[in-house]
């Protein structure tokens, strides 16, 4: 009971600090929203309107018909028409285009004569994402075009192609049928922001107690370490929850991200995840001598793992095995799949209990390590 009172005093004090420092409050509330907008729009992985230069050296009806397909496609944006190969070089160097389509002279002649016609598609590999997409779409476009040519040829020959059976895959994407990256990113961004706000602020404000000298006054009080820690993390966890609610609201109502699962499930996961953040924050504050070091430490342990080792942006399955093993240490990956499971798949306890268990175990281990590190620090 007395412990609760002391913890409450710390919580109230932390809110007073926040109230006295409006810049801090603004940073904690506004930064996540800015990040959200940045990720949702600027860092979108949806690629369309790839700037394209078309170099038609054939200048025939067929070549123009082929080039027209690029003009009509939403994936390509034909920004220039060129005459020679040099135009491709110049366009790439100036960054005007990322894809160059080169139709060689004799294109029509080869098609008419029934020979295999060749088209060169150059992609600017310095931007791998649009290069990959540009490549895939141009291949698809070529297939369509040649299928059309085949059909025209068959019709001229009086053949009925519908009699020819073929195999064709029908691909459907589940959970995120339009494969919109915002559906994928926003549930993940929630995890990143939870990690940053809670880990960074707990670590920094704990180190601040030391640099201010107030830590010593706290030590001579009957307050237990755990009361101080909880008192420190509660205000930031509350603020992180505010951030999460804002992010979800913008995502769901503003960007149409589906929220198919239950909110209590998400809240349970987030609570466990915040406990693990407490462990990180504590561990950092136990070893960091200054607030600056704590900031950098938080960046290393909060931002990087939740960003890179969680599957937020880069699929973990594509990483080297060692990196994958490292990622198991960080709770962010479990929270990431939990968050996406709830948002996109509507998954519940039956599907997500392994993630919940992993979160609980990593949190427990982290807090244990941090407590040991912290205890060593006191009275030295």
């Amino acid at each position, binding site marked *: 009971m007395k412990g609760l009172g*002391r913890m409450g005093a*710390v919580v109230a004090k932390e809110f007073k600090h926040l109230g006295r420092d409006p810049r801090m409050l603004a940073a904690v509330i506004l930064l996540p929203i800015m990040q959200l907008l940045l990720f949702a729009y600027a860092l979108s992985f949806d690629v369309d309107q790839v700037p394209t230069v078309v170099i038609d050296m054939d200048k025939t009806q067929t070549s123009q018909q082929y080039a027209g397909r690029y003009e009509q496609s939403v994936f390509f944006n034909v920004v220039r028409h060129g005459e020679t190969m040099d135009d491709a070089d110049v366009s790439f160097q100036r960054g005007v285009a990322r894809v160059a389509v080169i139709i060689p002279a004799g294109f029509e002649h080869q098609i008419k004569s029934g020979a295999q016609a060749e088209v060169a598609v150059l992609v600017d590999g310095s931007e791998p994402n649009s290069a990959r997409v540009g490549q895939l779409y141009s291949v698809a476009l070529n297939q369509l075009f040649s299928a059309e040519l085949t059909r025209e040829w068959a019709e001229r020959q009086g053949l009925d192609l519908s009699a020819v059976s073929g195999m064709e895959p029908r691909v459907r994407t589940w959970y995120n049928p339009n494969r919109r990256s915002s559906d994928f990113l926003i549930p993940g961004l929630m995890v990143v922001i939870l990690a940053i706000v809670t880990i960074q602020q707990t670590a920094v404000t704990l180190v601040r107690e030391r640099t*201010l000298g*107030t830590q010593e006054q706290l*030590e*001579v009080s*009957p307050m237990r370490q755990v009361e101080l820690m909880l008192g420190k993390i509660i205000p930031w966890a509350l603020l992180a929850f505010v951030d999460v609610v804002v992010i979800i609201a913008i995502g769901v109502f503003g960007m149409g991200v589906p929220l198919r699962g239950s909110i209590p499930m998400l809240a349970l996961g987030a609570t466990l995840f915040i406990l693990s953040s407490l462990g990180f924050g504590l561990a950092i504050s136990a070893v960091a001598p200054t607030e600056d070091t704590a900031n950098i430490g938080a960046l290393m342990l909060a931002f990087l793992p939740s960003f890179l080792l969680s599957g937020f942006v880069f699929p973990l399955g594509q990483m080297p095995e060692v990196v994958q093993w490292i990622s198991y240490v960080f709770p962010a990956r479990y929270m990431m799949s939990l968050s996406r499971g709830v948002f996109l798949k509507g998954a519940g306890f039956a599907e997500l209990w392994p993630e919940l268990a992993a979160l609980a175990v990593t949190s427990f281990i982290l807090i244990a390590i941090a407590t040991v590190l912290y205890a060593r620090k006191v009275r030295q």
Partner: protein
Amino acid sequence: MSEPATGARGGTTGPVDPALPVIPDSFRHLGRSPVPATGLAVQVRGLRRTFGETVAVGGVTLDVPIAAVFGLLGPDGAGKSTLIRMLATTLLPDEGDAEVFGVSVTSNPKAVRPRIGYMSQRFSMYPDLSVRENMDFFASIRGVSKADRRTRGDALLESMGLAEFAGRQAMRLSGGMKQKLMLATTLMHEPDLLLLDEPTTGVDPVSRREFWRILADLHEAGKTVLVATPYMDEAERCTDIAFLDSGMIREAGTPAEIKAKVPGRLLELRAGDPRAATRAIAGLPGVLSAHPLGDNVRVLWDSSADPEPVLAAALLEAGIAESGVREIAPDMETVFSHLAESGPEAAA
């Protein structure tokens, strides 16, 4: 560091300044009846602490009587802070132990903490919180009830002259007010023993006098005060003193006992050029030590001979005008400079 000391030398030496009002009742609100003025508040036994190769406190044994104002004197780096922090239970000793009101600081620090108020050398309050908020926060984590926080806070702010600054942010306080805020905060949970680590360092002379006025009031109210200070003149305001140097106690006792250890008589020699006069008389038979101080020379005379003709002759020879010699009561400044010169072996 030496600036406030020089500034205060003008006339604040001597016991608690009679010109300042001493209000023995001003800390009656501290509630807890004064502990009987017998027995020991602190018993230090062979306390030792090193930091790497440096011996900060090298085996200190010390007794602080209940209701004493115990001055822990010594230069920077003498080990005062380390000793106080071990008593405050924020630092573990390597060897030895100390008991605060009979409770060990090493084996039972939790039982020691409620009875002590510790004021560290650094300003250690939240700069963005107000005076009142700082006092209330530290009181509430010390388990002081809301009602007590209000009544004690009001009374402390009043008696320290901080009432009108209650709402001011701690970072906007002057140096003296910051120290008073720290003291007021350590008094909120009504400790019986105050451990004050250089509370007047870097504080202007007027604020120093006021701070000592408050300490005198606390003494009247029955509190035990252990105060570390580098200022020798503050020793005169203590009931007991110990001189710490290089982690060892060199001298301990009441100010009168310490003064009695200085042999001979202290003379004040008025001379035209005090520095030249000091050089002229140093080493004369009977002169134990000579130091220029202001327009005078402080001479420690240890001889049965009349000092006046001897000194006059020496000055005449050096061509320095002399206008009189008079005997004065030894002050702590002189006592410690003599003890420091005679070295540890003389103190043993």
